[in-house]
């Protein structure tokens, strides 16, 4: 890589010095990080999401700060009743806040080392300073869903943490997991999770992710998933908060007949920045991937969707769909949408689409003609636009939780 693509960043010797000596895996990653740095604006995948602002902040490792004290689950964290609860504070598993009654087939262990190599630049940073996390393994059908709660908090200085999450669904096993990411106000914190997922043959994973970080926080999440033959991976991601958020998800199809849905929605106000970057690596025949992302943007926010679908020569009968829809609530925001199809097979069904627009005047008039004032009408329509995306969430309890989160965002916007 060219020098010009590098970015000075705070994760060098000063950062490392605050931590105990690194093991071999971390040391390797630190050397790679020293060579490659953080991605600058000249790296195509990071062109729309500049890290300059992040790189200027003198983060310290959250693990080295002794003035961070989180002893309760914040009140605004949604309560997922009848679910196993796993709580991470600054990426570190907290048994005292968690509630995982034993269930046959479900194993939760603390992650100690970054054992799966992931190439993405933020995953290298994660491996260099990996500071906790959990591994969730599932055999058979786990009846109770899992709610993983991540709380970020800084003390007197800005703090960063780099957890590893692993979700392993054995062949024919089933799991539903809701991950919700939150934080406490104060100095900025930087959450840099890496999640590795494997769904075994004919396994089913439903993964729902809510990112509602503090408005000053950074959240750059990298997810890599391997999906085996006849397996289903059904994911929905909701982005509702954080100064700079990127949810990067790449999926490798490693068996025939797998079906993947990656759906999501985001709502941005102020100067918030949210990026969905996806990569569907169709390397097996007869697989389907479907992506629908919807965004609502206001203020001077910026929404990014980059979706790449690669279909190998031998991946015949691939069905790959992607759609991005954006709704502008004012003239200030910016949307960058870049769907890419790269197809080497000749018998495939692939398409992408993108729309952007404002609220439909015909819809507004219809509501007005029923006595609904313009402000309430806009609220109803924006909520409807986002609620429509939730139709893709199969789990009814999760759908209610996410719907409540959308209402919460609309209320924050109304009072902003």
């Amino acid at each position, binding site marked *: 890589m060219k020098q010009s693509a590098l970015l000075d960043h705070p994760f060098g010797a000063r950062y490392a010095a605050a931590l105990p000596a690194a093991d071999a895996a971390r040391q390797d990653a630190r050397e790679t990080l020293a060579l490659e740095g953080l991605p600058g604006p000249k790296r195509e995948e990071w062109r729309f999401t500049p890290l300059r602002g992040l790189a200027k902040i003198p983060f310290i490792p959250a693990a080295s700060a002794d003035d961070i004290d989180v002893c309760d689950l914040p009140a605004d964290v949604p309560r997922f009743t009848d679910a196993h609860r796993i709580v991470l504070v600054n990426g570190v598993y907290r048994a005292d806040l968690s509630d995982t009654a034993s269930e046959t087939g479900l194993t939760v262990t603390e992650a100690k080392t970054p054992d799966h190599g992931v190439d993405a630049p933020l995953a290298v940073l994660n491996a260099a300073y990996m500071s906790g996390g959990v591994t969730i393994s599932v055999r058979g059908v786990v009846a109770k869903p899992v709610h993983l709660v991540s709380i970020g908090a800084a003390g007197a200085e800005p703090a960063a943490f780099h957890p590893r999450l692993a979700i392993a669904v054995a062949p024919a096993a089933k799991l539903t997991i809701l991950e919700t990411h939150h934080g406490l106000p104060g100095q900025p914190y930087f959450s840099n999770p890496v999640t590795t997922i494997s769904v075994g043959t004919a396994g089913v994973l439903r993964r729902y992710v809510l990112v509602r970080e503090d408005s000053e926080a950074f959240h750059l999440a990298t997810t890599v998933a391997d999906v085996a033959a006849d397996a289903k991976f059904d994911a929905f991601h909701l982005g509702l908060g954080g100064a700079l958020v990127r949810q990067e998800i790449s999926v490798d199809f490693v068996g025939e007949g797998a079906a993947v849905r990656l759906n999501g929605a985001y709502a941005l106000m102020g100067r918030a920045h949210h990026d969905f970057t996806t990569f569907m690596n169709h390397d097996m025949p007869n697989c389907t991937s479907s992506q629908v992302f919807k965004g609502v943007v206001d203020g001077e926010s910026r929404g990014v969707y980059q979706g790449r679908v690669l279909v190998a020569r031998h991946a015949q009968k691939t069905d790959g769909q992607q759609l991005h829809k954006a709704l502008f609530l004012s003239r200030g925001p910016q949307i960058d949408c870049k769907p890419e199809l790269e197809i080497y097979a000749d018998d495939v069904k692939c398409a992408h689409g993108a729309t952007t627009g404002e609220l*439909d*005047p*015909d*819809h507004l*008039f*219809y*509501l*007005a*003609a*029923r*006595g*609904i*004032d*313009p402000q*309430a*009408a806009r609220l*109803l*329509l924006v*909520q*409807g*636009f*986002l*609620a*429509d*995306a939730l*139709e893709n969430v199969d789990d009814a309890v999760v759908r209610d939780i996410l719907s409540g989160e959308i209402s919460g965002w609309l209320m924050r916007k109304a009072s902003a």
Partner: protein
Amino acid sequence: MALLEIKNLHVSVGGKKILNGISLALNAGEVHAIMGPNGTGKSTLSNVIAGRDGYDVTEGQVLLDGQDILAMEADERARAGVFLAFQYPVEIPGVTTSAFLKTAINAKRRAEGKPEIDAMEFLKLVKAKQKLLSMPDDMIKRALNVGFSGGEKKRAEVLQMTLLEPRVAILDETDSGLDIDALKIVSEGVNTLRGPDRTFLIITHYQRLLNYIVPDHVHVLVGGRVVASGGKELAEQLEAEGYARYLSAA
């Protein structure tokens, strides 16, 4: 004083004159029908009364209880009692019919200084009115008008009218796209709303609807003008003879 009075109304759209001086007085308790061929300004008239943007009123007044409503926003007019049943109700994905109905009912109740409707009362009320219109209960759980058939959309319009109890109800081509059974059900729904405090303006191309909702007055609109007015027999005459003689006169 007429409940709704339209006085010498002139309207242009994009510089083109559509209505050329319409005057009508609708008294409480009356049902008026406006008939006319396509493109004579029937829908323009209903949209202007309801307050849709994009119409240029160059002259005239629309008075509700003697107050000119042309300066009011569409939502204010609706809360004052004007209701437009749309010819083409819009589909709004993601907004459930029930959330929409509750918002509309509460907007009206707030304007009247009443407390918001409670959830149980709302469900009971909607259920009763849906039964009247032979609508399935679960319809209100669906997104507003999304995937509704033509008949279901029109029934949903009448359901809204029944719930909002307007003083002036304008039905814009409510009969279009309805089969005979749906037409009967919709008409019955309208007929149960007829009463001494309310007036109806029924806009239609065909006389068929007027067999079920029998009007007190019929007006023929051609070239943006009312060219004839009469009783219900005028509708029958139009059905038999067509609009030809009015068209040649205009």
